[in-house]
């Protein structure tokens, strides 16, 4: 993962700020940021399953939000997390991700809090010096 993320305060909830050199480079740190908001999640890396996500629709920030929402459902419904990406295309109003997910190791993981949703509030993805930055607020 070459990009970075940080969590920041936001009233009653939390924000995730992600930076990377490319749009595609935002994907893994954004996922890591979401998981960091939930806790310290561990998965059995040797038990990876195929993960696919595709979406299209003009706004890059919304596509990133939709991707994180998919990860949230994957976590809640299937108790799985994304453990790596093999192919990422992100730009020109579309996103396509192929990667691997794995079941969360409940014994090895530490849980902080539930994330209810990735909101639309202050949702932003913009070009900055050195690459791209995205900002998302999660509802706790």
């Amino acid at each position, binding site marked *: 993962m070459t990009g970075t993320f940080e969590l920041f*305060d936001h009233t009653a909830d939390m924000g995730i700020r992600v930076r990377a050199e490319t749009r595609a480079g935002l994907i893994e740190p954004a996922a890591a940021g979401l998981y960091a908001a939930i806790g310290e999640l561990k998965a059995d890396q040797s038990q990876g399953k195929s993960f696919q996500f595709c979406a299209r629709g003009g706004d890059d920030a919304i596509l990133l939000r939709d991707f994180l929402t998919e990860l949230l459902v994957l976590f809640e419904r299937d108790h799985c997390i994304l453990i790596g990406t093999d192919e990422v295309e992100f730009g020109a109003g579309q996103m396509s991700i192929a990667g691997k997910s794995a079941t969360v190791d409940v014994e090895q993981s530490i849980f902080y809090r539930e994330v209810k949703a990735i909101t639309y509030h202050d949702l932003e993805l913009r070009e900055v010096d050195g690459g791209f930055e995205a900002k998302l607020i999660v509802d706790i």
Partner: protein
Amino acid sequence: MVDQYTGPLERIDDTRWRIPKSYRPDMRVDGIIYADDALVESIKKDKAPEQVANVACLPGIVRASLAMPDIHWGYGFCIGGVAATDPEQGGVVSPGGVGYDINCGVRLIRTNIALADAKLNMGRLMEELFRTVPLGVGQGGVVKFNKAELCKLMAEGSRYVIKRGFGWESDLEATEAGGLIEDADPSLVSDRALERGSDQCGTLGSGNHFMEVQVVEKIDDAQIANVMGLVQGNLTVMIHSGSRGLGYQVCEDALKELHDTPRKYGIELPDKQLVCAPVHSPEGKKYLGAMRAAANFAWCNRQIMTHLAREAFAKVFEQPAERLGMNLIYDVAHNIAKMEPYEVDGGTTKLCVHRKGATRAFPPNHPELPSRYKAIGQPVLVPGDMGRASYVLVGRPGAMEHTFGSSCHGAGRQMSRGAAIRASKGRNIRKELAERGVIARAKGRTGLEEEQPDAYKDVTHVVDVLHKAGISQKVAKLRPVGVIKG
């Protein structure tokens, strides 16, 4: 850092402040915030009053955009926001006026157990509750419902889970709407929402959700307290939770589907998070049908946890819950949109009332009240924080006249989660609570730190404003003695 509010706030009286509609050309009505002089200073520290002004722009809004004294910033509507729209005048329904956690709400159960008699058992009781009630991240419920069962549950409400053994028939009368909003349409709930909710009915969640054992510390109105079964010195159990992943997904689905709907109906919005549709439109009806289904899920959720609490008490005190007098006092939603009749311009009109972090507060003789509460008014349950107090109030006629039958829902956060964690460094919050007489157990690593008492405003101050304003009347103060959190 969140910006401060710098717009106008005109003092109406000791408990109300007005944002005049002249503040912005797009406002259709005034904004009115319930607060006293002290509270209003903290209210101005975030942009929540601007959100009150934004809601005042919604088509069909009636009388005013309102906020209760526990107001703070939210998504679209502020938390503590109340707004009623008239569907016959193009009034809209907005998912932001309900929230992600559809029918997040509170219920209160009484007991015959005096704290003085229970002290030696409190540790065991809290351990049993912590062990029995599913809570925290990823924790599934004691029963998993398949798709067909979930649809029945959403169509029938609390009665469905009571028939399956999770409660008493008498619980229904003590639940808002009998635990069932009519005209729910489970077929409108997406498969994704059903998947998220299938093993979550009967689970507490985390964040600010809790199950708390309390003692009735002070009674302000003995006659009303007696009707409710509140006895000074006796234990109560309060449950705060909502519609879990199913409800969050219903909101998520609606926000996506309604994204372009305002433009379709020529509605201009000052904030995209006020996305909405006319109540009578296909989009509005779809959201309402799904929202009602999720609301019914939430009542089932709290009903199952009530059963689990009763079982825990019965095990620890070695008597059936019936013998312990564990009757439900009331259950009320604080994130919901409901069609309710109000007097408007000399006639009765059915309005779409949004309560986003606001509790229904019907006065005596309201036709929707159960017979035992007709004379006293509807119980209003207001949780504070896990260190100080929660309150039981009753609705007053002023609520029908001024706030569309609404009161506050809690204390309101005054510290972000990050700030609360930083303020906890070097401290042992669990030990501090124990020193205050509160046995606290939390599953999440940061649960107690994020939800510590200092993170919240003083709820006494909040309820005092509405008591003074004649919206809801104080009945009893409850002090926490044990709390479990996810």
